[in-house]
């Protein structure tokens, strides 16, 4: 007998499972309209590959996966694509999302497909690809793409493969009925998974409240090395981490994966779907869903096509809407209410619960927390929910993280036992969202800061280089002057030529960039950025992070920028070559400078006599003024007679000259 471990806490809510297992699985039939949301899994939504008006066959791919953490969508029945538009989807937020709508034709015509009963001949990559192409994502609730989960990293050795048939949530019997009716497929599916993963042991974990299912499984498993393990019923033993602890005694490290402790878990429903996909070649287009609650007359399990409107399915079980107050997808502990009974059944819809008010009463207003600690006793991950509640109310995010808020699995055990009716889980969800938002904001701010600092540094560097170049030029000019003897008027033309040459030399020596180089650099860096962004996106998808959408837009933007940069480069190259053809000579800076200097000299030469005369006059007047000033200063300070006389003579001479110049100007103007 295998040793069974216990986990901390847990509760025993009324099971309410017997109502829906009295009859075998019924076929829900083909509804007139199927609504297939493009995202029914964790990861990037699929991309439609059909057009409105197109006829599709049962099992045909109608949407392709985008990225690694994504799965395709298939038409659940034959018909015509009537719309690709936003519809209400079953999601806790109650929002709308893109869906492919198929108007069924009732013929249920299959596309050509074939299975591989002898799957052992396929290599692992081919098997994984088949699982992925069959659109299989975890059918227990989270909807994580199975192929991703089954892609074992090389550094992980898997000791235990666990098929999760716990089904600890009250009311739900979808897995129970599968065990009773399709034990063979479950075992075959488990064998396929064992072939794929090569674990040391393969276990099927089932709570002891399903004796019929356990018996059926054991009968089917006899002769195989698959072990069916029974353990005491306690909510939430079906949680992946709890089940691993029950069966192996190991705890998955916080923030880690089951593979870190050598375990891989698969949902029982997914195992059957994998069997169907590999052996029969059938993609995931229908599933078993429990329809139960006192608002339906005949609670039972249905084989239902994905995309079937919930109302259609509920009506099959004798739904009396007037008796109920809400419609829950999933169980009473972790399920969420859907906004409308027309939303479709998706791959994760294991149960539709339509309770009456007496059955699941609307919660009374919350009272004060008296810190009784019943929540801490019930918590399966040993948190202190009463403290978390206290910190959540005060928005003490640091304290919340220190009290391991992010290890909360939102099982609802704390809220269930709370005598004050406090919606604890709701507080934790809200706090988690707030903290995640803060982290994102912080990351963004940090990124901006780094970018700003990098820019600042770049500008400073450019300034420094410019300064150095300037200094180099100055030195060169001084050197030149010294060589030329350091006297005499420099020929401005020669100087300009020298300057331009020096500049060009500096440019060629490095440092500066031509326009072309700049553009090339922009393209390279954009490409690099795109690569990093894509890598980040892939990582986020692999982890099923909810940042995926944000990262996706980031990647798209970066790609746009890269394209723009490439285009700019091409344009420049085109115009550059055109310019080169236009100009007889390459228009370099030196040439330009020479021309400029020459032009200046020519301009001087071409001055009119009138202007020249005026210029001379002005100069003379200035000299006269200076001499007068000097004379006045000498007189005041009492200089020698001789000097004063000399100065007076100069002034007189200059006055004459000015007079002459004035006449010259007048002459010139008259001329």
């Amino acid at each position, binding site marked *: 007998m295998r040793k069974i471990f216990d986990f901390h806490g847990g509760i025993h809510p*009324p099971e309410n499972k017997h109502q829906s297992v009295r009859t075998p699985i019924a076929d829900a039939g083909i509804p007139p309209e199927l609504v297939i949301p493009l995202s029914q899994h964790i990861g990037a939504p699929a991309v439609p590959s059909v057009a409105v008006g197109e006829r599709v066959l049962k099992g045909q791919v109608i949407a392709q996966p985008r990225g690694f953490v994504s799965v395709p969508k298939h038409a659940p029945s034959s018909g015509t694509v009537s719309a690709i538009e936003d519809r209400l989807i079953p999601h806790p937020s109650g929002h709308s999302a893109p869906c492919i709508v198929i108007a069924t034709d009732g013929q249920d015509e299959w596309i050509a497909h074939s299975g591989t009963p002898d799957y052992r001949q396929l290599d692992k990559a081919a098997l994984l690809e088949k699982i992925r192409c069959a659109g299989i994502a975890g059918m227990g609730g989270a909807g994580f793409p199975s192929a991703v989960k089954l892609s074992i990293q090389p550094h992980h050795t898997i000791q235990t493969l666990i098929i999760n048939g716990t089904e600890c949530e009250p009311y739900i019997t979808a897995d129970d009925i599968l065990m009773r009716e399709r034990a063979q497929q479950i075992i075959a599916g488990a064998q396929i998974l064992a072939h794929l993963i090569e674990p040391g042991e393969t276990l099927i974990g089932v709570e002891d409240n399903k004796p019929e299912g356990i018996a059926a499984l054991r009968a089917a498993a006899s002769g195989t090395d698959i072990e069916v393990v029974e353990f005491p019923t306690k909510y939430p033993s079906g949680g992946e981490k709890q089940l691993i602890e029950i069966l192996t005694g190991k705890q998955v490290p916080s923030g880690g994966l089951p593979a870190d402790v050598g375990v891989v878990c698969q949902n029982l429903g997914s195992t059957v779907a994998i069997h169907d996909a590999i052996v029969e070649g059938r993609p995931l287009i229908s599933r078993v869903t429990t329809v139960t609650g006192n608002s339906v007359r005949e609670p039972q399990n249905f084989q239902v096509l994905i995309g079937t409107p919930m109302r259609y399915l509920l009506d099959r079980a004798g739904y009396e809407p007037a008796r109920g107050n809400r419609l829950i997808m999933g169980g009473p502990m972790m*399920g969420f209410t859907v906004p409308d009974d027309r939303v479709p059944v998706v791959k994760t819809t294991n149960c539709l619960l339509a309770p009456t008010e007496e059955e699941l009463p609307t919660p009374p207003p919350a*009272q004060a927390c*008296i810190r009784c*600690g019943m929540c801490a006793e019930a918590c399966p991950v040993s948190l202190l929910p009463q403290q978390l509640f206290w910190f959540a109310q005060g928005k003490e995010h640091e304290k919340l993280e220190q009290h391991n808020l992010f290890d909360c699995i939102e099982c*609802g055990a704390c809220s269930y036992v709370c005598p004050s009716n406090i919606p604890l889980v709701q507080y934790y969800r809200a706090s988690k969202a707030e903290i995640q938002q803060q982290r994102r904001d912080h990351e963004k701010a940090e990124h901006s800061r780094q970018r700003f600092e990098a820019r600042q540094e770049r500008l400073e560097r450019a300034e420094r280089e410019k300064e150095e170049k300037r200094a180099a030029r100055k030195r060169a000019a001084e050197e030149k002057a010294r060589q030329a003897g350091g006297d005499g008027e420099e020929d401005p033309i020669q100087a300009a030529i020298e300057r331009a040459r020096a500049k060009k030399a500096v440019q060629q020596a490095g440092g500066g960039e031509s326009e072309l180089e700049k553009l090339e650099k922009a393209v390279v860096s954009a490409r690099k950025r795109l690569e990093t962004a894509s890598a980040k996106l892939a990582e986020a998808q692999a982890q099923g992070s909810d940042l995926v959408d944000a990262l996706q837009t980031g990647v798209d933007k970066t790609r746009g920028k890269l394209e723009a940069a490439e285009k700019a480069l091409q344009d420049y190259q085109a115009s550059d070559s055109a310019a080169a053809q236009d100009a007889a000579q390459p228009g370099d800076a030196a040439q330009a400078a020479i021309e400029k200097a020459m032009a200046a000299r020519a301009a001087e030469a071409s001055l009119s006599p009138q202007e020249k005369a005026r210029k001379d006059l002005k100069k003379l007047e200035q000299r006269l003024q200076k001499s007068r000033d000097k004379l006045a200063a000498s007189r005041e300070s009492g200089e020698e007679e001789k000097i004063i006389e000399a100065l007076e003579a100069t002034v007189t001479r200059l006055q004459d000259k000015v007079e002459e110049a004035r006449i010259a100007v007048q002459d010139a103007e008259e001329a």
Partner: protein
Amino acid sequence: MALLRLSSPHAHGPMSTARVMQNVLLATVPGIIVLTHFFGFGTLVNIAWGCVVAVACESLALKLRGRPPGFYLRDCSALVTAFLLCIALPPYSPWWLIAIGIASALFLGKHFYGGLGYNPFNPAMVGYVVLLISFPVQMTTWAAPRGVGELPGLLEALQACFNPASFDAVTAATPLDVMRQNNSLLVEDLWQRTPQFGRWAGIGWEWANLAFLAGGCWLLYRRIFTWHAPLAMLASIALLAALFYDGGSSASGGSPLFHLLSGATMFGAFFIITDPVSSAVSVRGRLVYGALIGVLVYTIRVRGNYPDAVAFAVLIMNFAAPFIDHYTQPRTYGHARGGKED
């Protein structure tokens, strides 16, 4: 059609705060019966009058705070405070003493901090300590038990409460008092010379303690609280009493059994320190909390100036509860053992 949008979980267990409080009230009944049997109707009259004052004070406080009294009164927490304080008070207490005690408990101890759930101190003990410091004579005069003195009837008990001047009770020192003040007699001699001593502890006291123990066990069975704090407190008292028993010499503090069945030991262990609001929260925290209360109770009883010490011990440890919480956070699933930084 409009479907209700609610967040999970949708199912709820049968427990409610009012039910928790009612269970506590019910569990005090055996103790009250025993107290009434041995000390007369005093305790019952205390409780009846205390409840009237408590409901009035609670309503007034809620009204002043702008809360609907109807909704909050239904949680029965004010009644629990009244019961606990009135059981702790000496029987035949005058009406004003009870009124001041209850008002202090509910206003000072509870509503000044924001009402139920936000009080750092046990309200009943706040009320008790206010009275003990303000009116030491009334608070340390305990009626003589059946067999030692004449028990007053119901009418006299009512008179004692509402017309205290006309009432003259037969009083006797409590066994704890006798034990504390003894410094010349061997424990055995003391036992023979003092009529208040019974089989294991004081007459009446031993049975009252056993009755509160029974009520506490019933609450444990009902899973109203866990065993950790009470057991830790009783264990530490017993351990210290055993350590300092000193073979029953004149310097002895009394036997473990004497301490377990004297004064408010069991009442404190199961009805006072288990008040969840003001105690430590985690399992380990409650063990530490209970054990330290036990240490304080024994120390104050034997070495201090007060005959019993539960109220002071609880209030002091209420101060320490957040500190204990900080260091006794349980290991969360998937986290390394003892790997808590900070």
